[in-house]
């Protein structure tokens, strides 16, 4: 039985990854279990400069999901390299995925170049989709031309595989994925969160200080699956699928739709051992569904 997959030339023991923003720098989970049993994880979105992010409340609840408006809180790329990566090295011994955000082409390029040079970094995951920041990535992710431009710019400074992470808040995600592929993207990661709002009827204010936030969790799984499939049919680079994954069956469904690797986001927050449990359940689930090699099912829906 084979659970290993290869993502942009890097072999992973299994396709299960923690999603950016839901796995910190791994520290909190490494206190609970050996996170080396994961395929890998994508660390908290990193920007050129430190960011405090949005004011609280940053979290709201919804049916089978949650809204967040964290606003890309992170200590900035230099601190990540100086403090977080060395600390991570003590407990995580696999290539990690570096998630990058920015507010201009130049910021993306500088941040990616710095992280590309780090030995621990296996892939760059360029988030052109975060819907929380007013002047943020949104614009890059909703226009094929802009998405292509950022892809080209980042590719020009990186030796490591560059995976572009897309927003679902668009009319035609396949067009954007294709534009990224043509501009040299080594992979496509999707979906980020859906733009969402909750209102506190008592106070008549939005629950989130930032007003809107991003919806994630099991509620969005069917939307993510549709988009992963649509992109799978449009590009030939590998896909990192995510959105609502919270059990081993969801991982298999995501792979059937077209994902080579699968990230687990919000589910980690409410079930801290979920990624470990999924990795442990994987062989049993494969046996149950007659899967000998996970690679056989990638994109394998039958019509």
């Amino acid at each position, binding site marked *: 039985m084979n659970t290993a997959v290869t993502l942009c030339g890097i072999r992973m023991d299994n396709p299960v990854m923690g999603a950016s*923003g*839901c*796995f*910190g720098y791994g*520290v*909190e*989970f490494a*206190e*609970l279990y050996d996170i080396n049993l994961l395929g890998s994880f994508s660390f*908290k979105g990193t920007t050129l400069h430190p960011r*405090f*992010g949005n004011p*609280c*409340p*940053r*979290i*709201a*609840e*919804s*049916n*089978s*999901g*949650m809204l*967040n408006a*964290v606003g890309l*809180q992170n200590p900035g790329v230099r601190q990540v390299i100086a403090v977080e990566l060395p600390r991570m090295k003590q407990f995580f011994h696999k290539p990690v995925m570096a998630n990058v955000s920015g507010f201009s082409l130049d910021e993306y390029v500088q941040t990616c170049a710095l992280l590309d040079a780090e030995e621990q970094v296996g892939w760059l995951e360029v988030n052109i989709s975060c819907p929380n920041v007013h002047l943020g990535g949104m614009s890059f992710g909703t226009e094929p031309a802009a998405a292509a431009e950022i892809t080209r710019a980042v590719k020009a400074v990186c030796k490591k595989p560059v995976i572009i992470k897309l927003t679902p808040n668009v009319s035609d995600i396949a067009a954007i994925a294709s534009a990224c592929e043509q501009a040299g993207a080594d992979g496509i990661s999707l979906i980020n969160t859906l733009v969402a709002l909750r209102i506190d009827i008592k106070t008549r204010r939005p*629950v989130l200080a930032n007003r809107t936030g991003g919806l994630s*969790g*099991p509620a969005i799984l069917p939307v993510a699956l549709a988009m992963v499939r649509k992109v799978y049919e449009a590009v030939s680079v590998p896909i990192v699928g995510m959105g609502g994954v919270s059990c081993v069956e969801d991982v298999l469904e995501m792979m059937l739709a077209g994902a080579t690797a699968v990230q687990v986001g*919000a589910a*980690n*927050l*409410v079930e*801290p*051992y979920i990624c470990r449990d999924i990795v442990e359940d994987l062989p049993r689930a494969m046996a149950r569904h007659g899967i000998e090699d996970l690679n056989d099912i990638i994109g394998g829906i039958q019509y």
Partner: protein
Amino acid sequence: MKQGNYRVLSNRLIAHATWEMVLEGDTGSLKRPGQFVNVQVPGKFLRRPLSVAAWDNATLTLIYKVVGQGTDLLTRCRPADSLNLLCGLGNGFDLSPSGQHPLLVGGGVGLPPLYQLAMDLVKAGKQPHLIMGFGSSDEIFYEDLFRRLISVTVCTVDGSAGIKGFVTQAVPPKGSDYFFACGPSPMLQALCSWLPFSGQLSLEERMGCGFGACMGCSIQTTLGSQRVCKEGPVFAKEVLIW
């Protein structure tokens, strides 16, 4: 932090819309008063953070107010039901900086963590005094239990019991030299300017995870950004920026 299933021993109404639940299970991860648990509520996506009011080797007590759907669902738990908890979250109160006469100030369901704290302070040979604030007399809980341990002043906003007004209407005992507080944010803010000495405050913030993974609860302090669930919920008065 420890995840586990806890067995409900009792779950009862102890004041207006206020319930006390006693759970049985592994309390080994609880180190300090003021720590909290994050309770999985079947049917809700996010867990609900609740302070631990008291614990021993095998049981822990939660006191919660019904304010929304999650806490309402909790009232339906019956003895022998099982609840999944993340236990032993947060830093909790640090007893060491306290003088001999600490003042405890709790508003409504801010009081629970002060109960274990009061027991621990007494055990450490201190003489705490408690100011309890409520909206109205029907919301009062644990007054007797606290009075068995320490001296208590009660305030109610509507004057239906004790001193009429907010907790800041009470007069702290002479010699009070440090404070520990938990309650609604405006109360905590008022305390910081009202009380001339140092102290620790337990904050509330909406949480994604409760164990430091999501940055959902970060606040700005003089120490930089701090996660209420991890570096907090208890912060020294001096580090808070209002």
